[in-house]
Each structure stands twice: as structure tokens, then as C-alpha cells.
């Protein structure tokens, strides 16, 4: 069997790998799952050959690739669907109030990108609000302390931020419709050279991933348990994370790449998932196009690359074709896998832990429920 190591951070939407392991889904692959917190560390590990693939946010892959890390996106693992929040202090009610404020986000990480895009859509310059580079947990703490005005963060940190006097959630990735264009979404990326040398291994690896995701959707309780165990989490924390995210199936992947046989997530929302408010604004304007399209991944890649290079995060411009590698999912489709693993159930349908059943956190969209 071939040894393959994948790196994740401790984040449950990245954790179907534990199901692959537990259920022994990947044939002829000895799968090793490593938790590597920190973007730099993961990139370094990939470069060193200790890992072959990783789950990460799309924008992180863009910045890594543009800084010379030889990797390619091969699949889209999950999409933020309410987990990410922009929490602001009293008096800040929308982008119109952002000028001169400061926000906490991790440099070159999705929160950073989300804020930059928000500024751009509002017609503001990228430095209209000041970035304070903070890890998610640090950002929440700093927001509570009052040092920053806006906390761009995800759960559970956002829940902590909300405890600041007068703090409120401006928007979430659900209400902001970022999922329509894949602005806050995660991918599976692998080392370019390894992909070239091991196409069949890569294909089997991803097949197993999609099988695991499909199984989880059908068996949320047991799946949550396996994932929680793998991460060393409480099962309630897995529910919280899955409540704010959607695991993408192969069809939705094909949709993201714009391949035949696929349908983008926005056209194919999971059964039972909550819906964004009808009056919320989409992101088509940044692409000179519609809000919800198939094949959004390429334009999003290019947008990210452009924005990050303007703020000195990206080191170069890498065309989307070089960063996105749809060969593996196309090959899986050719095998009919997209029909075999086609569940579109929402794992987040299980009840939330009590401490997260907070109206303000979900902006009225909670509770969802089956």
C-alpha cells in the first residue's frame, strides 16, 4: 500500500479523513492524518514532502501558490454556511461605517480576504479599515478587550466576541451569500509533483474522501462521533461546526470547476439547510456577472490573487488554470462516482449545543431543523 499523509487543522469539516481511516475506505493507501495548525507550518510540511495533501481555505492556497509553494487544488471540501461572522462594536452597522475602524483577522487568511472583498464591494479602499493581525482566538480576545472595532472570525470565537457590550453580528457567511461564489470555502490541495507522479493514488484518495462525506451525511450521529474522536473534540463542537458549513459532494465539486455533470452549491443547496434572507446582496458585481454561476472557482481564484497581490500577500499572479486541477474529479465523474455518492443532506441538521442556541448569533435564521 502507498503511504499518504494529509494535513488538516483541527476543524471538523476537514475531518472526513478520520472516517476514511475508521471505515478503511481508501484501497491500497495507508492514510496518515496530521493536525498542523498554522498556514506556514502546513505549507512547509507539504514542501518538505512529509505530507502530500492538505485541506485549507482557497485563499490560503492562492497566497501559498503565488509565493512558490508547488501545489494545486484538486477538490472543494466544504463551504462556510454561517460559521464565519463579522462582529462589530456598537455604532458600526455596515460597510458605510468601516472607514477608520480596525478589524482583527489573520494575515492572508479567509477573514482577511472577506473583509477586503467587503471593502471593495462597498467602494472603499483596502486600507479604509486597519488590519490587526491576530489568530482567531486572539482576535476574539482583542475585540472583547475593546482594542479592535470589528472581529472577522468564526465560531466558536464569534460567540465569545458577542459578549462585548453592544457587540452584534453584522453578517455571517450565510447571510452574506459568500457561498454563491465560493468566497469562504475550503479545498483539498496536493503537491503538484506528487499529483503528476501518482494520479491513481490521488484519484483513490479523493474517491475515498467523497465516499466518507456521503456516508457522514447519511449517518450524522456516528460520523460526528468518529470525527470528534479523531480531533479530540466534544461531539457538540462538531455539531456547531457542521451547522455552519456544508460538505460538498462530487456534483457540487463539478459545479465549482464548471465541469459537465455538476451543479454549483448555490443551485443545489442541501435539503433542510436554512436559507439566506432574500434581500441580501450577492457578489456578482465583483465579477461583472451573476451572483450564482457554475464554474465560479476560476474567477474566484483570479479575484483572490488580484486582491492579495494588491495588499502584498500574494507574491505573483498565477492563472486559475495553473492553480486549479480538475483532472481528478473529472476522472471520478467518468467512473460515475458522482452518482454513487450523491447525498445532499445537511450534516448540520442535528440539534446545536445549548450554549450556541443564541438568537443574535444566527441572525434569526436559527434554528433550522429538519
Amino acid at each position, binding site marked *: 500500500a502507498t503511504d499518504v499523509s494529509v494535513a488538516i487543522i483541527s476543524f471538523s469539516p476537514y475531518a472526513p479523513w478520520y472516517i476514511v481511516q475508521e471505515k478503511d475506505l481508501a484501497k491500497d493507501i495507508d492514510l496518515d492524518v496530521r493536525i*498542523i495548525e498554522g498556514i506556514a*507550518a502546513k505549507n*512547509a*510540511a507539504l514542501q*518538505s514532502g*512529509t*505530507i502530500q495533501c492538505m485541506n485549507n481555505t482557497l485563499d490560503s492556497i492562492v497566497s501559498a501558490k503565488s509565493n512558490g509553494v508547488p501545489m494545486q487544488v484538486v477538490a472543494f471540501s466544504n463551504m462556510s454556511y454561517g460559521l464565519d461572522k463579522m462582529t462589530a462594536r456598537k455604532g458600526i452597522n455596515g460597510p458605510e461605517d468601516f472607514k477608520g475602524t480596525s478589524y482583527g483577522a489573520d494575515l492572508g487568511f479567509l477573514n482577511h480576504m472577506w473583509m477586503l472583498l467587503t471593502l471593495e464591494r462597498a467602494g472603499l479602499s483596502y486600507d479604509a479599515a486597519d488590519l490587526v493581525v491576530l489568530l482567531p482566538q486572539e482576535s476574539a480576545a482583542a475585540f472583547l478587550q475593546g482594542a479592535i472595532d470589528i472581529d472577522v472570525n468564526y465560531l*466558536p470565537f464569534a460567540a*465569545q466576541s458577542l459578549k462585548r457590550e453592544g457587540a452584534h453580528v453584522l453578517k455571517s457567511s450565510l447571510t452574506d451569500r459568500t457561498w454563491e461564489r465560493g468566497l469562504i470555502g475550503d479545498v483539498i490541495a496536493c503537491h503538484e509533483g506528487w499529483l503528476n507522479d501518482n494520479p491513481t493514488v490521488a484519484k483513490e484518495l479523493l474517491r475515498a474522501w467523497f465516499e466518507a462525506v456521503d456516508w457522514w451525511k447519511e449517518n450524522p450521529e456516528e460520523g460526528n462521533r468518529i470525527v470528534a474522536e479523531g480531533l*479530540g473534540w466534544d461531539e457538540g463542537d462538531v455539531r456547531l461546526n457542521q451547522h455552519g458549513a456544508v460538505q460538498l459532494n462530487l456534483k457540487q465539486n463539478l459545479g465549482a470547476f464548471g465541469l459537465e455533470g455538476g451543479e454549483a452549491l448555490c443551485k443545489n443547496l442541501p435539503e433542510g439547510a436554512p436559507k439566506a434572507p432574500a434581500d441580501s446582496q450577492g457578489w456578482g458585481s465583483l465579477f461583472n456577472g451573476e451572483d450564482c454561476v457554475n464554474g465560479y472557482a476560476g474567477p474566484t481564484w483570479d479575484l483572490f490573487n488580484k486582491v492579495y497581490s494588491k495588499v502584498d500577500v500574494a507574491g505573483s499572479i498565477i492563472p486559475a488554470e495553473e492553480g486549479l486541477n480538475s483532472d481528478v474529479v473529472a476522472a471520478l465523474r467518468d467512473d460515475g462516482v458522482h452518482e454513487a455518492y450523491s447525498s445532499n443532506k445537511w450534516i448540520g441538521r442535528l440539534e446545536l449545543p445549548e450554549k450556541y442556541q443564541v438568537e443574535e448569533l444566527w441572525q434569526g435564521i436559527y434554528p433550522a431543523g429538519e
Partner: protein
Amino acid sequence: MSDTVVSGPALAGREVRHEDGPRGAPFTPPKQGFLALKSHYSRKTLGTLALLGALSLFLAWEIGAHSVPEAKEKFFPAVEQVLAALFQLFAEKEFIYDVGMSCLRIYLAYIVAMSVALPLAIGMGSFENLRATLNPTLSALRYLPAASFIPLLLVWFGPTDTSKVLLLFLGVVWFLVAGMLADVRSVSHELVESALTMGARRKTVVFNVILPAAGPQLMTSARDLTAVAWTYLVIAEVIGAQSGIGAVMMRAGRFLNVDVIIAGILTIGILGVLTDTVFRLGHRMLFPWAR
């Protein structure tokens, strides 16, 4: 010159008590306040005072924790919450395994660091030209922040135990070299010279005189630096946070479980003090001849 003479002209005309006479009355020395310049305590008093000091710290913490505004409570858990978290870690999360892994890494790193530092220190301490050549460079290396080697270590060794151990190693080794060099250099020159006059050759002098003479002090230096190694643990174990106290603390950070973080800090503190004690005992056993 009789045994009981008390002479001197001034006393000649007086009867004075002498050594066989009755003992004088008990003398009452003046009272000393708490902050007396000179005082000696029994082991028991020392223990009580030490406990008192530790308890005040915990008391201050407890009071602090309970006077924190509600919003920030999560960031400043009270003593009992931390203890509960600690208990839960051990009872439910197999924390003992993480503790074991951390200890293993620390000790391994320490052994590696020692086996690099000791020969360097002995060599540089014994041979002036080796010292002149290497020491300026090596002592500058102390300033290199180990934490910033993480990306490099990852690239070369991946998120493996090797990386973690190397990071811990880098965190202490140059300090060890500097400390141990000072120890070797403080070996009395006369010891070396007396060996030479007995016909000892260079090798004998280095291994049979300088090494044993510096031994106790070397071990003390090594002991003093364990504290530094422990503080690097949380930095090292974030790399590929699979296991270890640092990894547990890191994961707790992802859910803002500050109680778990503090439980981890507490564990590290206790382990640190234990290590120190082991070193102390080892010192006494290895060097019975040292003060």
C-alpha cells in the same frame, strides 16, 4: 598558669565567678520583627511559609477570577474551574499520555542538547584556542530565536517529533554551552597543574580532572536550564499538534477553553518543579563529594 586563674589588674581586688561557679542567668535577646536581617528557620517553618506564599498566589488568582466582568470570565477561570478541567483531562481525555509524550520530548531534547553542549564546553574550556575560535560565534547563537526556526524545521523534517525535539534543542543548547563553558573554565587551574606535575597527559587531564572537577557545577547549570526547555514546550508542540501538553493546550485554544490552557500551564509548572527535584536528587547521588 593554673586552670582557674582569672587575672588582670582590674579584677585582682574583686571576687569574680569563675568557670566552676554557678551558671549565669538565662539571657533574653531583643525581639526581632518579621523583616529581620538575620533569622534562621526550621524545615517546618520554611515549609509553612512556602505554603503560605503559594496559597496567597492562588487566593489572589481566585479573587481576581471572581471579580472579572462576565464577558471576560471565560478568559480568567477560577481555580476550581481549572482544577475541574485538569481532572477531566486526566479522567476522560487520556491526558496522561500527552504528559508522557511531552516529557519524552523534553528529556530527549535535553539529552541531545547536553551531548552537544558538554563536549563543546569541555573542549572550549580546556583548550584556549578552541575557545577563542568557537566561543564568540556560539555565544552569538544564543540570540537566535528558536521559535523562528519552526518554518525551517518543518520544511526539513516535517511536522514530526524530530522537528519538535529539534526546536526544544535549539531553545536551550546555546545557553547550555555558555553556562557549561563558564563551569569548565571555573575549574581551578591548580587542579590541572597538579595533575600535570604527576605526569598526566592531555587526555587524562581533560577526562580525569577537568570533567569530574566541573561535574557538579555542570549538572547545576543543566538543571537551571530545564526551566527554559519547559517554556518552549508550548511552542514546539504546536508543530503538528498530535499529542503532548502543548498540543492539548493549542486545541483548547481553538475553543477558547482557557481553563484547559491554564490546566496545561499548571501541569507544566508541576512537571518543571518535579524535574528540578529529580535533578537535585540526582546531583546529590552523583556527586556525594560535592558540598
